[in-house]
């Protein structure tokens, strides 16, 4: 499969648009269907497609494990840190109201940041799961 030029070229063409579509789902999730979880899966799908066509080693060069692990933790920190920021601004945990002057803008901003955290973690976990299972070597 890897030597088939059709797969190679199609996956190269699709790689960018998949990520852009993922970003659209991520940042348009507050108006349309979508959100961090779906976006994370879509973006991860682009990298998984790359790994499937070019091989796991190439995929790991593109997105090394240490980046995946850091992004996993970063997403949690973005989500949880938003809650801590609310507390520091004098509101309850994850209360977005103090983030902006108008309450609906504040809620909007808060949900975008939190969903970004979700998206980052879901992306990294999906890719991490794929790498873990694809790279699985049975013990003797």
């Amino acid at each position, binding site marked *: 499969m890897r030597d088939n030029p059709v797969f190679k070229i199609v996956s190269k063409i699709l790689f960018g648009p998949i990520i852009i579509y993922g970003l659209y789902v991520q940042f348009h999730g507050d108006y349309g269907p979508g959100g961090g979880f779906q976006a994370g899966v879509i973006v991860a799908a682009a990298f998984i497609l790359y790994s499937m066509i070019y091989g796991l080693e190439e995929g790991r060069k593109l997105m090394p494990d240490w980046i995946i*692990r850091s992004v996993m*933790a970063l997403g*949690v920190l973005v989500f*949880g840190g938003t809650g801590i920021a609310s*507390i520091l601004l004098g*509101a*309850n945990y*994850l*209360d977005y109201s103090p983030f902006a002057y108008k309450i609906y803008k504040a809620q909007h901003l808060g949900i975008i940041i939190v969903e970004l955290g979700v998206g980052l973690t879901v992306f990294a976990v999906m890719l991490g799961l794929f790498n873990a299972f694809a790279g699985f070597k049975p013990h003797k």
Partner: protein
Amino acid sequence: MLILDNIPALLVAIPLLASAVVSLLPSARIAWGFAFFTTLICLYMAVELVGIISSTQALSYAFGGWEPPWGIVFVLDSANVYLVLLVAFVSVIATLYAYTMLAREIAVEDLPKAYAVWLLAIASLFGLAMTGDAFNLFVFLEISALSSITLIALGAGQDRRALLAAYNYLIIGAIGATFYVIGVGYLYAATGSLNLIDITDRLNELGTNQAAITGLAFMLAGIMVKAGVFPVHIWLPAAYSFAPSAVSSLLAAVATKVAIYYFARLLFGIFIDITQLVDFFLLYILMPVSVLAIFYGTIAAIYQSDFKRLFALSSIAQIGYITFAFSLNSHSGISAGFIHIINHALIKGALFMAVGIFALGIGSRATMSSMQGVGRQMPITFAGFVLAGLALIGVPLTAGFISKLYLFKAIFETGNGFYVALIALSSVLSVLYLWKIFEVMWLKEPVQPLKSDKEPASAYLPVWLMVGVIMIFGVYSGEVISSGIGAANALIGAR
């Protein structure tokens, strides 16, 4: 003030965020230091929380400023604040113990990730103890199950059977969680609410409602799996006996206890006034099952030769005592149950820690044949172990005695002498397996030199801290007793 006002949220958020940070730390020592510091902060916050509740009685914390019943709330009253303190205390001690023990039982490069999962488990236990939202509880139940399973599977470095134990827990735990969430679905269909206080109000208006009762049945079944109540305990013995010893001590001490607390809250805090079926369930289902649990756990422990499995089986019996106390369906019964939740957590935590140290000393699993004379070779740990064992039987001057005393008091109120005989008989039986251990470890000659020439002080110090608290609670038992009575007051009103 920022911290004091937001303690309920921070108790979950701080370990959760710390776990993300710890997972990235390069060195096992730094990761441990970070984790230990986090648990200390949690203990501080839990102590503050007890102070707040003792002056205000109850506290409701609305996440995101969404007021109940719409948003998710954490509710604290005298039923769960001591549970939070218990989880915080045990997690500090268990983390201290993990410094020496976890490092020797799992690969060094896995340690930071292990501490990350460890903190995640602690965060989920805090969440389970505090949440006032039926669905949010399911979320914490899943976090707690997944993190516990990972921690149990880490025992595979010592013994590959840990993988099977973890897998069994995954499957059985998932079935339990499914039952619980089906129950929440029924309850939501009947009441249109997920907030537990709101559900109680709405059910009172609705009266007897088939969907709500079906929901209750599913929820109870699911929670009983998580709490390790006989006969749905089957994941428990293997999970506790093959997990790394630090993990066993943390999970055996507090993981099932938060599920039991929620079990009591469902029965007595919400459904007791709604339907007669709760009385039926307590008398005709929970009570016989608890008696079976007590005798099954104790007798199986007598015939067990693997120490960790023996104490896991004894846990099933001890959980049986707690549910038996609940099944008496009285104020003093509930108090006795909550008193035993605290005491048993401390006792079983100390016992699992001590067994871990013995196993480390001889370099293989602690069994009746491998443990000959090890008590003489490790006298400091063994002394703590014996005291905790005496507390497990319920010898006076230990915390276990207070548990048994209040259990007997609750039974005498029912006027049924048969139950007194049953509990007394089971206590005598538990002497048997502890005597067997004492005989093997102390009265027999050591057969082999220890792998490490001394028992590590950093490992027996946590054991002795636990034992110290057990002894203190055996003599100055006022706080524990009033916490149990406070819990009963919060659930069914003062009597």
